[in-house]
């Protein structure tokens, strides 16, 4: 191969690699604020809520509106008192095991990643796109399914996280879906906000 042909082949290869890289760079970009869709909706239990369920560990989460179909890990507390988070490479969300189980009276808390540089969009990447009334289903280990309706989606700065609003007692079976959002702080390597979906049970559950 002549040097000129070799140079031409190298240039073509670089062009192909470059095109792939450009596409990849835009695909891997974290969601910016303009991509979030935060809807203010009614609060409190949805109409038609039935009685609460007993305690049963959640095992699966389905949110049809954003095509989320995930297993659930049990999460505790880290030594510093913050919530444990699912492994970055895990495709699953997690249930905060010091909160009620979904369907019990109280705020059941589920956490999931918004994205990861290695694995791309996380299980809760599209959480901000949920709208009031969207359905969230949680399968429990006893075979029952707790069904919730989204009340509202909110974004809170981490510096002013509303602990009482998220973890405080409520008089009905509720659900909190939490992920990160807002602007990404390159200095700390973290997003500046949390996105929290507040939902309420619309049916106590049904045996599978």
């Amino acid at each position, binding site marked *: 191969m002549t040097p000129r042909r070799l140079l031409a082949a190298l240039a073509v290869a670089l062009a192909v690699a470059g095109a792939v890289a450009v596409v990849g760079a835009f695909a*891997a970009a*974290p969601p910016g604020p303009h991509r979030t869709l935060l809807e203010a909706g009614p609060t409190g239990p949805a109409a038609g809520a039935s009685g609460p369920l007993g305690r049963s560990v959640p095992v699966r989460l389905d949110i049809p509106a954003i095509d989320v179909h995930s297993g659930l890990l049990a999460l505790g507390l880290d030594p510093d008192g913050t919530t444990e988070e699912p492994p970055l490479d895990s495709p699953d969300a997690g249930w*905060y095991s*010091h909160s009620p189980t979904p369907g019990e009276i109280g705020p059941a808390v589920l956490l999931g990643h918004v994205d990861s540089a290695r694995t791309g969009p996380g299980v809760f990447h599209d959480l901000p796109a949920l709208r009031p009334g969207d359905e969230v289903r949680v399968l429990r280990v006893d075979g029952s399914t707790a069904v919730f309706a989204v009340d509202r989606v909110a974004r809170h700065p981490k510096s002013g996280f509303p602990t009482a609003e998220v973890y*405080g007692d409520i008089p009905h079976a509720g659900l909190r879906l939490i992920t990160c959002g807002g602007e990404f702080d390159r200095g700390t390597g973290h997003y500046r906000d949390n996105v929290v979906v507040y939902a309420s049970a619309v049916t106590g559950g049904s045996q599978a």
Partner: protein
Amino acid sequence: MHPRSTRLLAALPVAVAAVLVLAPAAHATTTPQPSPPPIEASPAPTPIPASAAPSPPPAQVAPAERPGQVSQVPVGAPETGGGATADDPGHSTGLLVLGGLGLAGAGTALALRRRTDPTRAGRG
């Protein structure tokens, strides 16, 4: 009656009484007496606490709070955003640089093709 006899008679009850009184005493000195039963040692009376100061009233016990529905409330905000690896600064930048190089390579390839294209030779 002889006065002397009268005096004796008068002294007789006194003598009898003296005998009656003294006889047990004399008997006691010669006959060992059973030891009296030991006196039960009565428990010492508990000392009255010298509590001059009245004991403080029991602390006001707060009504038992209903345990929260979330048994342990975490500290701070959850870090569920992919954290430190969510947006490695070198990651996207590197991809963009590679893309730029690729575009430059594509331009070079086009330029080379034009220079070697015999149909374009002599044009201009």
